[in-house]
């Protein structure tokens, strides 16, 4: 338990508070259920601190404004749900290629299209990974509790700043709208990472030249470092290039700066998996049902355990691989048609039996449903 005073908080409020704790000082958004509470919260809190809040004309504009603000040195966030997230894919790719830190919250709701705005879903898992066109790395985090909403939003900002990349917080309607009693960490207890800015004089600054970290230093616009930012593939100086060796080097680095940090990015929570014969792998709201199922199942003598995934992309291959070891079967419950199951299958590579529990009717998967599915595995 953290030191802070206990409060009754909604997931969406915790996301907004997490952003503020991480140093978010710019927000642009567009109203959409079930993410509007985040935008409303920021519209009240940012002006108090003298920071910009914008309600833009659409989600495209919201992310555009965030990227612009981030280039000018702000820590920016936007929040949306599936339909708006689809619109953001264009500028998400821009943030990837220009390497601009920004946090995008997608509170998933039942889709496709308008779907069921007030019902939970986990249908955007693969969109969060592959939504924007072209090959690109992605960092996506998935909270299941109100406290995790807070903590993972802080982590999202830290990853965005550290790796100079957009980071997606993939929440769901259930998690975002659930209220829980939580004690949030005090400011001193929170690690806040800021982007590395150039230390050389402007004349020496080569905007996309990197040191061993593969992550270039980012200068704020208007600080004397006059450089060019473009969505075209660019050379180290930031100018468009089509030279084969420069293009290849660029794309390779864009991936490598994330992939060489896979172990650092992996985030999972294990619950009673040591002696488990059957493993449940779950994330977001479904992980809570799975945890309840494990609790109840254990009371009934079932040897089951849960691996909750928090860092859903890059997929936590090492942790999942280790957890699969020696299990008789693995159940992946999710509110989609099996978007994470296919990743588990990939990692499993034929070792153990992987079964799915999918639901697309807008309601939650209940602990009983997981237990019933587990019984079928006997």
């Amino acid at each position, binding site marked *: 338990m953290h030191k802070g005073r206990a409060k009754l908080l909604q997931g969406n409020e915790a996301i907004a508070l997490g952003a503020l704790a991480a140093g978010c000082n710019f927000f642009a958004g567009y109203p959409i259920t079930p993410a509007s509470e985040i935008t409303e919260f920021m519209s009240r809190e940012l002006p108090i601190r003298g920071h910009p809040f914008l309600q833009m004309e659409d989600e495209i504009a919201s992310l555009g404004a965030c990227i612009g603000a981030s280039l000018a040195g702000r820590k920016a966030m936007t929040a949306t749900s599936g339909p708006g997230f689809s619109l953001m894919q264009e500028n998400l790719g821009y943030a990837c290629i220009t390497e601009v830190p920004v946090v995008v919250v997608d509170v998933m709701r039942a889709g496709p299209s308008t779907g069921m705005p007030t019902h939970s879903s986990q249908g955007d898992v693969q969109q969060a990974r592959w939504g924007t066109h072209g090959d690109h790395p992605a960092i996506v985090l998935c909270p299941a509790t109100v406290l995790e909403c807070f903590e993972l939003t802080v982590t999202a900002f830290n990853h965005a700043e550290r790796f100079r990349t957009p980071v997606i917080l993939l929440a769901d309607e259930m998690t975002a*709208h659930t209220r829980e009693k939580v004690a949030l960490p005090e400011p001193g207890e929170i690690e806040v990472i800021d982007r590395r800015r150039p230390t050389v004089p402007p004349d020496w600054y080569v905007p996309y030249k990197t040191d061993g970290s593969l992550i270039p230093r980012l200068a704020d616009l208007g600080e004397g470092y006059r450089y060019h930012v473009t969505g075209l593939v660019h050379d180290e100086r930031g100018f468009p290039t089509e030279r084969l060796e420069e293009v290849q080097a660029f794309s390779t680095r864009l991936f490598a700066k994330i992939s060489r940090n896979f172990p650092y990015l992996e985030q999972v929570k294990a619950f009673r998996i040591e002696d488990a014969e059957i493993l449940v792998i779950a994330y977001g709201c479904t992980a809570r049902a799975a945890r309840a199922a494990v609790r109840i199942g254990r009371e009934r003598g079932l040897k089951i355990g849960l691996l909750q995934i928090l860092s859903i992309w890059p997929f936590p291959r090492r942790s999942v691989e280790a957890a699969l070891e020696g299990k008789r079967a693995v159940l992946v419950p999710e509110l989609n048609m099996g978007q994470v199951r296919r990743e588990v299958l990939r990692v499993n590579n034929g070792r153990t039996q992987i079964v799915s529990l999918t639901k697309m009717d807008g309601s939650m998967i209940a602990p009983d449903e997981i237990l019933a599915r587990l019984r079928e595995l006997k």
Partner: protein
Amino acid sequence: MKNKAPSLPGARVEVRLAGSGGQGLVLAGLVLAEAVGIYEGREVAMVQSYGPEARGGASKAEVIISDAPIDYPLCTSVDVLVALSQEAADAYCWDLKPGALILVDKDLVAHPPSSLAVALPFTAIARDKLKKVMVANVLALAAISELTGLVGRRSLEKALIARAPAGTEELNKRAIALGAKLAREYKTRQTGEALPELGSEDL
């Protein structure tokens, strides 16, 4: 005076507050959650209905109360159901725990889901005695407190005053007192004890 109902397990108690949009069930859920969570130090989670159902139609709030961290935040087996409309009583009675406390508005729910339901005139009393129909939800909360001991009246009062608009403190205190009185009256009827008539000093 707290009466712990024997039907409520200590580990995890599930409360569902249901009615139609505008009856303040979501606010009631918030107040109950804060009363238990903040003022009584227990773990609490709350989920409410959203969208069209929150504005007219059947609306609900679910509050899970526990001494251990709460995993699943939705009701799976309801311990306490409050229904302030027939539609809500019909829609949200399918997952009651055997022996659950069913508390309905006597005048608005003509056909309670069970013959064991406790029917009290929350809305009528709120309207007639307090001239504010909207505090029927507060009366219901006080009745839960009185009948189950799940939450203390003082905690309810504190949580309510922190949430409700300034200037409504007296009204809310009176509503809590009245709700508790209604419930006490009911209990007395059940046990056959005589209870003095509801006097003006209680208001």
